[in-house]
């Protein structure tokens, strides 16, 4: 690193030695995992029957990513593979703690995480209920709350349940118990895999009634 003498306005001189930062970052592990090949037969076998400590995905989430009606497990069908792969890595490293999912994520190889995420991402997403309503859930979902400095859920997660990009999941057609549990986990800080602490912060400003209203809206 070349030292450059800089004439300072005060008349003194400052030696500029600071090394420039390296701005290039390697891709995250989940991104690499998604591009790794895995045999289709193995993927379907893990989903249906599990693998070692990893119990079968289908047991809770359904083989096509649709959990049984009334179950508290999230639907995976049609969620972005990038989002699901990232979550599995986050279960592994504890930024999204879960007694059930952590051992599963740890038992899967990187390539298996990638292929399972691709599988569920390829399943057709369920139809989302068309909701036009004046209740609090609709306000928070579509408009936000100025006095609490809360933007609309749709700002990031997309209106009409299209999602907001590869790692911003669509929120619709999820069991309300699941949505409530996640907002509570963000609010307590137990779940902390959100970028920039966005969800941890916003969920702190939501009352229990607000969380219930959002969950009902998206169910």
């Amino acid at each position, binding site marked *: 690193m070349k030292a450059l003498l800089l004439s300072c306005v005060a008349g003194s001189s400052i030696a500029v030695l*600071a090394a420039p930062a390296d701005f290039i970052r390697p891709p995250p592990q989940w991104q690499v995992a998604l591009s790794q090949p895995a045999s289709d037969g193995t993927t379907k076998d893990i989903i249906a029957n599990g693998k070692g400590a990893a119990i079968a995905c289908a047991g809770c989430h359904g083989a096509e990513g649709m959990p049984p009606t009334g179950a508290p497990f999230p639907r995976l069908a049609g969620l972005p593979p990038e989002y699901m792969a990232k979550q599995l890595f986050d279960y592994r490293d504890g930024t999204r703690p879960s007694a059930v999912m952590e051992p599963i994520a740890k038992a899967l190889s990187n390539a298996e995480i990638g292929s399972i995420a691709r599988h569920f991402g390829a399943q057709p997403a369920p139809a989302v209920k068309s909701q036009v309503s004046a209740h609090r859930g609709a306000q928070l979902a579509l408009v936000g709350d100025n006095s609490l400095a809360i933007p609309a859920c749709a700002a990031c997660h997309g209106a009409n349940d299209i999602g907001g990009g590869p790692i911003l999941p669509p929120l619709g057609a999820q069991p309300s118990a699941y949505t409530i549990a996640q907002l509570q986990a963000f609010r307590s800080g137990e779940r902390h895999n959100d970028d920039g602490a966005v969800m941890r912060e916003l969920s702190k400003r939501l009352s229990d009634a607000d969380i219930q209203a959002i969950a009902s809206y998206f169910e």
Partner: protein
Amino acid sequence: MARVMPAVDVVLVGGGWTGSVIGKELAAAGQRVVVLERGQPRWTSPDFAAPGVRDELKYTRRHELHQNTAMETYTFRNRVDQVALPMRRWQFAYPGNHLGGAGVHWSGAYYRWDPVEFKLRSHYSKRYGAAIFTDDITAQDWPLTYDELEPYFDRFDRLVGASGLAGNLKGVIQPGGNPFEPWRSNPYPNPPMKVPHAPALFGEAAAKLGYHPYIQPTALSTRPYVNSEGLRMNSCVYCGFCSNFGCEQFAKASPQVCILPAALKLPTFELRTGAHVLRVDLDKDRKAARGVSYVDGAGMETFQPAEVVVLCTFAINNTRLLLLSSIGTPYDPSTGKGVVGRNYTHQTSSGVSLFFDESTNINPFMGAGAVAVTMDDFCSDNFDHGPLGFVGGGYIQIQVVSGAPINNRPTPPGTPAWGSAWKKAAQRYYNHSIPITITASNLPVRGGYLSLDPTYTDAFGESLLRITYDFSDNDIKLSKFLTEKGTQIGRAMRGVQLAVGGPRTKPYGVAAYQSSHINGGAAIGADPGTSVVNRFGQCWDVPNVFVTGAALFPQNSCYNPTGTIGALAYWTADAIKRDYLRTPGRVIA
């Protein structure tokens, strides 16, 4: 006969950054304050809720948050022997309108001006000899220093939730920051932005060439933040809709996110929107203002009596109000006498278009208005101007402003402007092109000034503001120098197949965007013969009128103005509270 409102202590014209800051400060000190905003009230929720706010046609093309040219615009000419014509559609700059003003639709690039900018003429004259300024240049020193303003910069940092990595803490250069940064008493309240791919490639190449790239400071919060007013800001989510848009996330600093909710809780603070101010009304001997006249939302002419008037409109609109109110002597370019309107400046901006191979994905939609890797090696007086023979400098950077589909259609030079060849190139390059942008200082010239147009009027029948300006040779040389440096960096970047520099050329025009930083006309100074206001922004001729914002700039820096404008607003508010109110009606010594 105009309706007369109950008298107040202070009336502020304009509900942007300076009106909000000074209005809140004075209201908190017990003054009865009214802020008059010509536009409509706009709040983050519901007005800027996504996805509705991400409408390029509405906000960028049709100028939803910009001054309405059908109501009020500027006329323009290069020289005094030409007839100025009105701008019907904004191209050269985007003057703000509505609550929050340009503080809503800005990008959030956040700088402090370099100490040299405050003593430009004396610094350069001392180091290089007075002849480095050609005779046509009317640049002049500020009557205050960076060191005096530093505590106010610090204060504004904590209002806007500034994000960055300090480069110079109390004179000690910090690793990873900008080594050319002016000293600061505290670190930035929030860490720097994440770096998108194109700025990262720029930083890599610039560092390889021996320069000092760093992450541009912003007024976009990078983490949940409670500001100095106790108001909440959220993390920026890099949605890419900053410039020309309201921020949907409460992440980009704006008056309505950072200060107005606190101000509106004060019983002494009133905000009146839809109030278009026509003039400051003076008493008979024109030594004191009585208040202001405005037209309200229903079209009724109204007089607001006040003890103090503070002009807080968008930049050079303050100069127009001074001229319409007959405050101070208008500048005459033929004699060089008079002060109101002198020292108009804009920006000497240029760019280098970069076209990449198809394996380099720029993803121009993944960004934020001010997320950039930038370098100050050629800013201010950070390099030897002696052999170059010009004054000033500029920053060179890649900033991922927007991939918005109407505007962002980069094609290499020589591509047909329409038809299948254009479509093919537009598709090929959408994700494989981005410019290096160069933002440079701009010097005032003797023949450049602001005045009332003799022909064209606004919707209320008042004369429009006329801009007369052309670049000095100084700034053309500067632009050529910086654009060559930028082109060299572009050619050193990985993946770049073609780098085409486009330096600024004469004449200065208003048909291409340069920046929204239009300045001057109410220069701040120590000498009433060459300035409109004293070091506190107080009018020499009418001491109960204060002027704020970029109208005060005697010349423009390469650095974006908002940080300095915010610091000055707190500086002026303190002077009014501490000095003016003790001896009202007098020029503060």
